[in-house]
């Protein structure tokens, strides 16, 4: 029974709070017997990108890579970012409330077998290569996501 349950998710956002929500859902679903696929596209690639990764390609790609540098440790908040003070405060509040950090949630997700897929097209556009990804994952396009999504009972876009 549990083998048949699937959840697929698009992580479009590169905001820390939204990535948190995505990972809580992914780990929760994996614990409930769902096979989970997280398709990371555009800013969502930052969740699985190495923090030291720099973009490759022309001037525009490198400029964008500079402004969008870093993995999940550098993610801003979707609200009240306050030039980076917001995420620090939130991380402290999470520690105080004993909420798992993004790092812990990502590790837990991988341990539970959550499958991450990096979007080929947005990697190309943004000058991100496979070597820039910190997490073992597949690289795929819209068809690979839709194939998963079609088999899933739960589909989310974050």
């Amino acid at each position, binding site marked *: *029974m*549990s083998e048949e349950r699937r959840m697929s998710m698009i992580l479009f956002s590169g905001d820390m709070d939204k990535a948190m929500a995505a990972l*809580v859902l992914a*780990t*929760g679903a*994996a*614990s*409930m*017997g769902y096979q989970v696929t997280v398709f990371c596209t555009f800013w969502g690639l930052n969740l699985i990108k190495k923090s030291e990764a720099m973009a490759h390609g022309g001037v525009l790609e490198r400029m964008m890579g500079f402004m969008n540098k870093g993995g999940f440790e550098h993610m801003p908040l979707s609200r009240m970012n306050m030039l980076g003070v917001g995420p620090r405060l939130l991380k402290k509040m999470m520690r105080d*409330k*004993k*909420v*798992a950090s993004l790092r812990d949630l990502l590790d*837990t997700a991988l341990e*539970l077998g959550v499958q991450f897929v990096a979007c080929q097209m947005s990697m190309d556009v943004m000058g991100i290569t496979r070597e820039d990804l910190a997490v073992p994952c597949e690289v795929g396009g819209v068809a690979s996501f839709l194939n998963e999504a079609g088999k899933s009972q739960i589909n989310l876009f974050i």
Partner: protein
Amino acid sequence: MQADRSLDCRGMACPMPIVKLSKAIKEMSQGQILAVSADDPGFEADVRAWCETTGNQLKALESEGEIRTAYIAKS
């Protein structure tokens, strides 16, 4: 209630109690009972939902102050 194994999830917040209990249940055999204690306010609702979705049976739910202890029979 007697349990074959107990798991302490006190001090953990969502989703960790569910993650931990699901790992523990996987290592157990059918019919065995797992006792999970947690003080996350969402735990009661979550453990009920987890049991409903996974088909494991919630035998009892005890509360003592902030702490809820769920007894789950592996099916």
